[in-house]
């Protein structure tokens, strides 16, 4: 057992042929099979991940840096960036708050119907983004359930910022909760119980005991939630009304530019979203590494 742990805890990639040392030759595939499998995987990933990623930036810079910056600094583009940031600034904290409440209620207590609740929380992931937008059209649209009342009171939700925020909240709903629930369940309730028994209040227990334990998982959920909130297209496109400079988010602005055959500008704005995606992936890898080392620490203490 100790041998298994120490070998997997050793820094990976220290030697190129590491598994050969760990795995008996009889289990390894013949070298030609290995080469073929690696070849297939590399060609597939190159065609579907690396070439598209390179293409975004190549197309964005096709007309040079001046055109690139002009496309990003243009008024409608700036308005789209502002709207996207505003939407994420509302949707992400809202779903973060929900994620913390849901994971506290679900992971720290046992009650009937937990499984049903978990399935309902996952629901937005299995709903097509178009349908996520449609449900708000049916609620708040002119022909919708609340439409006439909203019109009487001069409140605009659909084809305005509130509708865009609501649709974004819907599609990013489960991200934080589904990251935190399994993490908090695996950590059990003993530490919180000890804190409460020693006299800490509920909030104090949360801030000083639970939060330090879940901070990396929480950050992971927020990163994913934010990436989706800033990049959502289908749901937002249904509720936005596509008013240039007013209800266009960055992805919708990309679509408008592209459909105007203004390809270089479309890719210039799209490259911002691609950069966001790359940053998301980098942060994700970093947090995954922190989560893994957090998991391993108690192990090593035991070994020592």
């Amino acid at each position, binding site marked *: 057992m100790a041998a298994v742990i120490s070998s997997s805890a050793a820094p*990976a990639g220290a030697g190129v*042929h590491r*598994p050969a040392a760990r795995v*008996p030759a*009889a*289990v*390894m*595939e013949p070298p030609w099979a*290995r080469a073929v*499998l690696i070849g*297939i*995987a*590399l060609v597939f*990933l190159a*065609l*579907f*991940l690396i*070439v*598209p*990623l390179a*293409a975004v930036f190549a197309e964005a810079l096709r007309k040079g840096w001046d055109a690139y910056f002009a496309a990003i600094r243009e008024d409608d583009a700036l308005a789209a960036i502002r709207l996207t940031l505003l939407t994420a600034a509302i949707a992400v904290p809202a779903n973060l708050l929900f994620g913390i*409440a*849901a994971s*506290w*209620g679900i992971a*720290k*207590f*046992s009650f009937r119907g937990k499984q049903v*609740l978990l399935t*309902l*929380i996952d*629901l937005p992931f*299995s*709903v*097509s*983004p*178009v*349908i996520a937008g*449609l*449900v708000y059209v*049916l*609620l708040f*649209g002119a*022909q919708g359930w609340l439409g006439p009342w909203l019109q009487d009171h001069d409140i605009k939700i659909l084809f305005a910022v509130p509708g865009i925020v609501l649709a974004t909240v*819907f599609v990013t709903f489960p991200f934080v909760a589904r990251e935190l629930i399994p993490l908090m369940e695996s950590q059990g*309730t003993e530490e919180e119980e000890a804190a409460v028994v020693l006299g800490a209040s*509920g909030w104090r227990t949360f801030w000083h005991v639970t939060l330090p334990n879940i901070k990396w998982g929480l950050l992971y959920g927020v990163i994913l939630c934010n990436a989706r909130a800033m*990049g959502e*297209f*289908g749901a937002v496109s*249904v509720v936005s009304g596509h008013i240039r400079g007013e209800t266009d988010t960055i*992805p919708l602005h990309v679509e408008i530019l*592209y459909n105007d055959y203004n*390809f270089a500008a*479309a890719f210039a704005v*799209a490259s911002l*979203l*691609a950069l966001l*995606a*790359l940053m998301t992936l980098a942060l994700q890898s970093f947090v995954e590494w922190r989560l893994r080392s957090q998991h391993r620490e108690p192990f090593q203490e035991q070994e020592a």
Partner: protein
Amino acid sequence: MPSLALPARTRAFRVIPGFGLSLGFTLLYLSLIVLIPLAALFLKTFTLSWHAFVAAVTSPRVMASYRLTFGASLIAAFVNIVLGGIVAWVLTRYRFPGRKILDALIDLPFALPTAVAGITLTTLYAPHGWLGRWLAPLGIKVAFTRLGVVVALVFIGLPFVVRTVQPVLEEAERELEEAAASLGARPLQTFIRVTLPIIMPALLTGFALAFARAVGEYGSVIFIAGNMPMVSEITPLFIVTELEQYDYAAATAIAVVMLLASFAMLLAINLLQAWTRRRSRAEES
């Protein structure tokens, strides 16, 4: 330790505060954002007569869009189960330069907004694009055809199979494979008789997740599909078209059909994941 664990177990409910507050907020938020809006969708269909409902969800144009959406999603999920399986295998079993970068990039289709994926794939596979120019002389058209829909859906579904199979492969006990090899099995035999059954539930889960995501996908597909009614129009796009023509009832009816299909898939995925968990638990004991 046991003396502390015993009272904790019997009174676990009351020791930690905040059950009512956290669960109450959870249920309120869930109802407001998800449940009530989805219920409104179902209620809206009751404004249609049964005949009108059936007519709306079985018109020839919708039927063609179902065939494309579900057919292309099925093909894309199959491509992903094979190529994604190979990628998961290569990433967990072999060490080669650039492996860590590739491993981190696997999630790109999750992180890259769908509209960006859509315009990029379209530009790449257009007749003069980086990839399209090599396919055009062979008579293969990808952009603005149904093949383009499949390509976009393969991209979107790529991480699902890889990310569900990878942890299972990492945990799989090599001793079993060693035993098979020492008993005289050739590598391919070992793979088919020993490894494949271990990763099968994960492969199927990945397949179902990729398929479910593909069926609802909109942003990446509409740019590359060409969107010709009866030929290359996916169901989510048809819903949007009906909405833009203010035919809310028809849009809602089709959405309900899609939603029921999604629920069925969600159920299947949950059952598959329960099976996977049971399998891995049985192996541990």
